[in-house]
Every structure is written in C-alpha cells, then in structure tokens.
C-alpha cells in the first residue's frame, strides 16, 4: 500500500470511527484512538524520511484516481511526498500528535470528546491533503477542508451563539480568499492546461507566460493565502477564532492551518520569483500585518487574544520573508513558530484550565508559584518568540530581518519595530499572568492547580523543540555549509534562491540590533507591569483605546460591507422582487379584468342596442371592404 495512502488513511479512519460510533465508545478509547491515528501517520512519515533524504529527485508519488476528466483535461487525485511536503507533514503530524495528547485531558470534562477528536483527525486529514496533494486541485480540497474543520471546531460549543458567529465569520472570510485561489487556478488551467505542479511549475520556470499573467496568477493565489493566513485585510477572523477550544487554537490557528498560505507561496516559488510585482505586494501586506498585529497585541487582555494577534503578526513576518524571496527562511520561521506558538497556546490552555476557564489576564497574576511547569515552559516560549539569543525564534527572525535589511531598509525598520513590539507584548503577557500579585476576585489563588502529565508532557516537549529548533537551519556565519533546512529545500527550488552573504560586520550589527530589541521589550514591560505594577484595565490614552478596539476593523467591515449588503437584500426582496417585479408581472390579470368589465356597458341586456351595434358592425365590414377595394 502506498505510504501516502497510509498517511492519509489513519486520520481518516480515526475520523470515521470517532464520527460514526463515537458516542458509543467510552471517552478514553475515543481520545486515545484519535491520538494514536495521528501518531501512526507521523511514524509512517518518519519511516520514509531517509528515502526522501537520500536523493533530491526521490519523491514518493501516488496517483489515486482520476477525479474529473473533461475531454482530455484531467484532474487527477494525485499526491506526492517530496521534501517540502514531508517537512510540512512532519510538523503537522508531530505537533498534531502532541496536541492530541494534550487534548485528551483538556477535553476530559466535555460531553463528547469523540466528536472533538473526530473533527481534529479530519482536520489533520485535510491538512495532509493540502500539503501532500501534487496538484492545485487536491491542495484546494485540503485548503477548503481545513476551513470547514476550523468552522466546525470554532463552533464546537454550538450552544453559544457568539461562537457560532465567530465560526461563520472564519469560514466566510476563508471563502473570500478561496474565490481568489479558485480564479487563480482557472487562470492556470486556461494557460497551462493542467493543475499538476509537475506540469505547471516547470513550464513557468522555463519562462512561458508573460509577467502580467504570472503577476495576476500570483496575486490571485496570494489572495487565497491572505484569507487562510489572516493577512490584512482578511485577518479579523483569526482572533475571533479563539472561541474554539484552546488545543484547536494551538493546532489550527497557530501551528498548521494558518501557515498553509506560506506553504502555497513556497510551493509556487518558481511563479513568484518571476513575478516581482506580486512579491512586492506580499512584502508590504506582510509588513503591514506584522506591524498592526503587533500593535493590537499590546493592549489585549484576553490571554488567547494576545497570542492570536501575535500569530497574525508572526504570519506577517513570514510573508515579509516570502516577499523578499527568502523562501527557506519563511519555512524556517513557520517551523520555529509552530513550535513556540503551539507551546504558548498550550501553556495558555494550561493556565485557563488552571484558573477554571478564565481567560482575562486582568484577573490573573502571580500564578508561577502554583503552576511552575507551565510557567517555565511559557517563559521559554516567550523568550523564543521575542528572539532571545540562540533560541529558535532568534535564528528564524534574525534571518528574516537580515534578508529584509538587504532588500529594503524602510521595511527593515518597520519590521524591527514590530519585533520590538512583539517582545513587549509577550513579556507584558508573561508578567501579568505569572508575576506580580494575584488579582483574582471571585476565586482564590489556592484553588489554582497545575495540570496533569498529559498536558505538561507536550509542553515540555515543545519547550525543548523551541529551544533547539534553531539548529534546524543555522545561519551560514555559524555553519558555512548552509543550514540544514536550506540544504534540504534549496535543491527542490526550480529557480535557485541565492542566499544573501553579507560580510561579518553587517551581521554583527543586525544581531546586536535584534538583541537590543529583545532587551528593550523585556525591560519596558518589566518596568511597566512589575515595578509600576500597572493594572491592565488601567485607563488608556486615546491611542490605547484604538489599539484595545483593534483599530475598529470589525466595526468598519460591519458598517462598510455587511450592513449595506443586508440592506440591499431587504430592499431587493421587499421592494423590487415582491412589489415591483411580482406586481408588474401579475398586474396583467387585473388589467384584463378591467377591460372585461367595460363590456357591461355594451352587453346591457337591451336588444335595441344590440341591433344597432350589429348594424354598425355590418356597415363597418362593408365600408372597410369598400375602401380596401
């Protein structure tokens, strides 16, 4: 049996079993089953790692069946396990396994975890579909599938209408992106007559297809990526998506799904390398997202919201990297980000769990004594994300900054500033949650408790990963042969990516700037929230309010798009459709009736009139006939 089939099969099996007879199974069986399935595909993937590693050309292909065949134009359900997709697969299944494990106890109190695990498995399946598919169609299937799963999982507690709203928001916004993606695919079909990567990308690399075409394809695909990866202007769904259970946020909205956009762009590296316009667009969109996300993150009090906006901002970082053509770097950051952001979310989940389903950091504080493991791991995560030297985040972010520095100095400055903000809000979060005095009112510090091993083990593992994740792609000034990841990935690129080789001095400058940024953030928020002991709910300046209200993006969308469309709908229905169209069409009948009523005057029952009419008619007939003759 084909390994890809196996990899895809296990999560699907888990989904099927849990979905169909989940309610029959005992809770533990269901949860462990779900976890096991993901683990299985992880193992299978590992098993084929060295086969892929052995040679660049090696890639396992699986041509399942022909999905559609429109006289000759084939849409195959075909998959490939090459270096890029196996890398993603490992992230997905690996982190997925940990998060499943974590969820077992996290969802312990829930009525039917079976459903939850079914959804999770289904998500994993779709995600694998996305990365393993060897053509745009399969990728699109996964693409929409993960959207669907995120809808299901955000709305998991469907009793709560606002959760449902958030879920629909996520799905619809993804759909907007999907439209762009779909149109891009149509454009590809029209010009390259296929959707197989193997047909399309080489053709592009060989340079058939003008710049305009490539740019438009690139932009259309990027619109899809914007939707999925929560870039401005389609990012507002991601913070709302935190309505879902925390593991979901960790798995879907931090580690895997939201990076699908980056995966897409990396997959189409050949395309984007030849479409500089599109790349510029990506750069600036990413930059704006990184900056604004970080800004908003500064003033959020919901522990998950902070992490959500940090995710948005980090995704911005990745797109900036893509924008400057540093694909490897982007993937590197995807990886490290997956580690520490998953870690942070799970930590947050552990905190929420510990303080009995509270998320508002203004009622927390000083928890480190009560939940040490969580604290330590969370600290590591924070350090990693804000770029503490030699931690994973440090290397990946530094690479991005370096690339941007060589590409566009202004972008570099903005990006540095957002990195600074990152450090700031992360430490703010850390301090407000774990340090300082306990601010809880309606519960006491005493009944805060550390989570059990099923939750802490994943934390620890992820902490380790976030610490040593940097080793995956050491910069060349440390390892001159080039980082592992770049060596792993570069050969697969159809258009060779030339790594920037700045001289030592610049590197040192950049690194020192990065460290300075980190230190500033640390010191600033320590100063604010430890020494001053500033209360998060403390009155905000005007700018503060703007940030607190997320730049009023939601309100703006509501006023500018949603309301008008709804108004239009009402008008069209009540005025145009019902009144105008319906009335106009069926007013024929009354008109005819009116005409018929006129006959009363004529058919008045008096024979003398009848005779006169008849004679008149005869005269008319004869007269007409006379005139015609």
């Amino acid at each position: 049996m084909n390994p890809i089939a196996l990899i895809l099969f296990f999560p699907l099996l888990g989904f099927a079993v849990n979905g169909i007879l989940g309610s029959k199974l005992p809770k533990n069986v269901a949860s462990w089953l779900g976890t096991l399935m993901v683990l299985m595909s992880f193992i299978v993937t590992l098993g084929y790692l060295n086969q892929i590693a052995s040679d660049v050309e090696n890639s396992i292909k699986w041509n399942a069946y022909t999905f559609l065949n429109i006289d000759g134009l084939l849409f195959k359900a075909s998959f490939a396990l090459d270096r890029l997709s196996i890398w993603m697969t490992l992230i997905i299944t690996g982190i997925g396994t940990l998060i499943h494990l974590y969820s077992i106890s996290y969802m312990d109190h829930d009525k039917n975890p079976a459903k939850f695990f079914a959804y999770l498995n289904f998500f994993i399946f779709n995600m694998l579909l996305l990365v393993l598919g060897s053509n745009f169609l399969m990728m699109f299937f996964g693409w929409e599938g993960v959207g669907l799963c995120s809808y299901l999982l955000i709305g998991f507690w469907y009793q709560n209408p606002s959760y449902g709203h958030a879920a629909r928001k996520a799905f619809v916004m993804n759909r907007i992106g999907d439209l762009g993606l779909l149109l891009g695919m149509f454009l590809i079909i029209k010009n390259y007559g296929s959707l197989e990567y193997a047909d399309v990308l080489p053709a592009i690399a060989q340079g058939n297809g003008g710049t305009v075409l490539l740019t438009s394809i690139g932009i259309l695909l990027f619109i899809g990526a914007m939707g999925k990866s929560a870039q401005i202007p389609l990012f507002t769904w991601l913070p709302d998506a935190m309505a879902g259970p925390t593991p979901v946020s960790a798995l879907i909205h931090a580690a895997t799904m939201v990076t699908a956009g980056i995966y897409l762009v990396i997959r189409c590296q050949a395309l984007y390398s030849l479409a500089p316009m599109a790349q510029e667009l990506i750069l600036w969109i990413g930059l704006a997202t990184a900056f604004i996300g970080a800004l908003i993150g500064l003033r959020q009090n919901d522990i998950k919201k902070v992490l959500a906006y940090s995710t948005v901002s980090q995704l911005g970082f990745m797109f900036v990297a893509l924008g400057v053509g540093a694909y490897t770097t982007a993937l590197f950051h995807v990886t490290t980000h997956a580690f520490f952001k998953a870690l942070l979310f799970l930590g947050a989940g552990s905190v929420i769990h510990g303080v009995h389903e509270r998320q508002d950091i203004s009622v927390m504080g000083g928890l480190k004594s009560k939940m040490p493991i969580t604290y330590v791991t969370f600290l590591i995560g924070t350090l990693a994300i804000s770029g503490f030297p030699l931690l994973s985040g440090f290397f990946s972010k530094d690479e991005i900054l370096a690339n941007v520095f060589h590409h566009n100095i202004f972008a570099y400055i903005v990006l540095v500033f957002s990195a600074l903000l990152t450090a700031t809000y992360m430490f703010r979060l850390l301090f407000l949650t774990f340090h300082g005095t306990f601010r809880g009112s309606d519960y006491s510090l005493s009944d805060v408790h550390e989570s059990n091993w099923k939750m802490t083990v994943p934390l620890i593992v992820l902490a380790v990963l976030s610490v040593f994740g940097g080793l995956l792609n050491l910069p060349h000034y440390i390892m001159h042969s080039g980082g592992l990841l770049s060596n792993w990935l570069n050969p697969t690129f159809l258009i060779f990516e030339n790594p920037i080789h700045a001289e030592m001095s610049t590197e040192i400058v950049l690194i020192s700037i990065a460290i300075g940024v980190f230190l500033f953030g640390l010191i600033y928020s320590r100063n604010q929230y430890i020494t001053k002991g500033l209360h998060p709910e403390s009155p905000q300046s005007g700018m503060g309010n703007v940030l607190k209200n997320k730049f009023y993006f939601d309100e703006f969308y509501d006023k500018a798009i949603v309301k008008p469309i709804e108004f239009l709908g009402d008008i069209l229905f009540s005025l145009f459709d019902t009144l105008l169209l319906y009335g106009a069409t069926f007013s024929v009948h009354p008109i005819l009736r009116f005409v018929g009523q006129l006959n009363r005057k004529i058919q008045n029952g008096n024979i003398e009139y009848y005779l006169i009419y008849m004679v008149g008619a005869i005269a008319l007939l004869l007269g007409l006939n006379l005139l015609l003759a």
Partner: protein
Amino acid sequence: MELLIIAPLVLALVSALGSKWNKWLSVAFSLVGFALIAINSNSVYRAINEKNAFFNIVDMPWLGETIHFSLGLDGITFVLLLLTNILIPVIVLSLNSDKSPAMIPLILFMQAGLNGVFMAQDGILFYLFWELAMIPIYFITLIYSERDSFATTIRFFVYTFVGSLAMLASLIYLGSKSVNGSFAYNDLYNVQLGLRESIWVGAGFLLAFAVKIPLFPFHVWQPNTYTYAPAQGSMLLSGIMLKMGLYGLLRWYFPMASESIDFYQPIIMTLAVIGVIYGAIIAMRQDDMKRLIAYSSLSHVGLIAAGLFALNSSGFMGGILQMFVHGVNVVGLFIAVHIIERNYGSRSLNELGGIAKNNKAFSILFFLVLIGTVAAPLTNGFPGEFLLLKSLFDYSTTYAIFAGLTIILCAVYMLRMFQFSMLGEETQGTQNKHIPMIELLPLFILAFFVISIGFFPQWYMDIFQNSTKGLLNIISNAKGVLS
C-alpha cells in the same frame, strides 16, 4: 424504456384506489422497477458508451404520420431519468401519506410525465409530456397548499403555461418548415432557419425554459409557490421540474435554434449571473426557510444556466452534473425543512434553534446536504460548481468573478440557516423533542449521493460524457452552418 412511462401511470391508478401500504408499495415499485428497466435494457449500455446523441428506442405513429410516439435515449437523458426515478421514491418516502391521500397518485402521475419529457423525441410529444408533468404539480399545490392556494397556483400555472404556449408556437413554426410537417427530433433539427426567424423561434423556446428554470426576471412565480406549496410540491418543483427547463435548453433550444445562440448568449448570460447574485443576496435575509431555499435555488440554477450558455464542454459537463446534484441537494434541504416543520411546527428561523442538541444524526445529515449545497470539496456540490465557474471563466473573466461571488454568499446564507435552526440555544418551541429515526431514511439515501458524487464525480460523468460530446458536436455544426 417506455415502461418508465406506463408503469408509474398504472401504479398511480393502483395507489389511487388507496391502501395504507401505498407509500411503501410505490416506493418499492419505482425503485425496483427502475432498477430492472435500467439493468435489463441494453440500450442503456448503448446510451452510456456510444458517442451517439439521442438514438431512438421507441417509435410508433401517434397522430397521423406527422407526430410519432417516439422516445429517445442517451447519456444525458439517462442521468436525468436516474435523477427522477431516484428522487421520486425519496420524495414519496418523505411524505406522511395518511394526511394527504391524493398526493401519491399525483406524484406517480408526474413521474410518468417527467420520464416522458426527458425521453420524448418528437416536438409535440415533448410539449405533451411537458404539460402532463405540469398538471399533477398544479393539483398538488392547489389541494395541499397552506394558504391562498388558488391565487398562488393559478398564477404559477398560467405563468408557466404562457411560456409553454410560446414554446408550442415555436414548435409549430418549426414543424411547418420541416419536411412534410413532421415533428420528429431530427426533422426539426434539420430545419434551416434564417437569423431573424431563428431568433423568434428561439424566443419561444427560451421563454418557456426561462420561466421553468427560472431565470432572473422570470422567477416571480417561484418564491411564493415554493413557500406555500406542500413540502413535496416544492421538492418536485425544485428538484426535478426545474431540470426540465435546463434539459430543454440543452436538448431542444441549442440544436433547434442554434443560429440564434450568438444573439441570445450575452443576454442570457447576464441575466443568469444577475440572478446568481440577486438570489443569493435576497436569500441572505430570509426568515422563512423554504423561501430562503427558493431564492438560493434561483441563485444556483442561474449558475447552471450560465454554464450551459458558455457552450463549452466543461460548462455542459458541469451543468449536467450540477442538475443532478442540485436535485439531490435541494430536495435534501426541503426534506430537512419538512422534518423540522413537522416536528417543531415552524420553519421560521426566529422561532427555531438548538435542534442539534437532541438530534445528532439529523443535524449531521442536514449539515452534509447543506455543505453539499455550499459546494465544499469532497461533497457533491463542488465538482459541478468548479466546472461551471471554469467554463464561465473561459467565456469571460468578469462573469466568472461575479458568479464566483456565489461561493461566498452561498456560504453566508446557508450557514446562517444552519446556525439559527440547528445551533444556538434551544427555544421553547424546540425543547427536548426527538425526531423519529424513520423520517431520516430519505436523507440517508441522499447523503449517499452527496458523498459518492463528492469523491468520485467521474463515475457519474462517465454516464453522459460521450453523449455530451455528441451534443456539442451537433450544436457546433449547426452553428457552423450559419457562420
């Protein structure tokens, strides 16, 4: 195959006599009967495998020499027969027959008419069955509508009847031109029309089909009829009858008045795309679930019509597949609404909510059909919509972009409907009531198609692939004659 017309009539007469087993009898007969007919006849094999558009299977003089009782078959016809004879039993299943005794005979009568419409190979015969299919639905809506039935139904009937008469006029005109006034499909097709007259003839056909489909300005009869008609009536109308119009476009309008296609293409395309957005936007704001589905169906069918008029193979293939799919989905939705209304006594989104809590299976099935309508991948909605949008894109990017909005808007209103009916907190109307499992049987049947088409559309496309090629050749040749 002519059994497909005779058997339901006989069955209708039998069930008209009435017995408490009517429902199951008719379901069993129409399923088993269709299966037998489909399996035994080797003409089905021909239909699927030969690239032979609409070959004759029955031919006997019916009225003089000019009109023959002649039935034809090919892949397209067969897939629609499949749709009809699968949906009819499902619809019958969804009905509680003790409340509405006359329903089953009427539905079976209609089944005969529909089978006839899809197989008719003679102009007048086509018109005959076209009307025959109208009569039962008229009585179903008339007898079992919930309110102001007469006004609604007479408007619906007369409005569609006007369209049909326009088509009759076109047919008569063609017949008067054809060799010795024969109305046989091929003779009518061989008539060579000048541009102006073909525009007139086409107008006649298009009016009939546009009313039936319905296209944007001609849909006025639809919302009220769908809303007030009994659930089964709405299912029949939207699930099968509406396909008559699309089928008419494919089979009759395009080949017969092919000279006028270039004239009508932009008009119809624009109308259809307008209808797509128009229906979607209105559907977003509906409170009555049936009305919502009515407008959503307007939107979806507009897309199909546009795809057919793009006149490329992906449009045709997608369109035909989507006919099948839309039939399955919309009937599924109506059944779901019917079940909700039957158990909770309301179909207003404001009064419903939280049904999912106590009815897991139902909510899963409902959601399945729903995302099928939303055209999520791996459900039946996706392949058709993908192909249709592609064909539109090949025709004109702008149209594709506007029509593509449907995948966003459709998600909006469908999920809204699901949210307010199934999710959220329970209302006092919906508190801890359980839906009996037996009522879900039809939904299970439909769910099978949602999944199987979603995963393996090519299985179904193979049925009509060759015939569609043939039809496209015919049309392009006919257009070629003029240009």
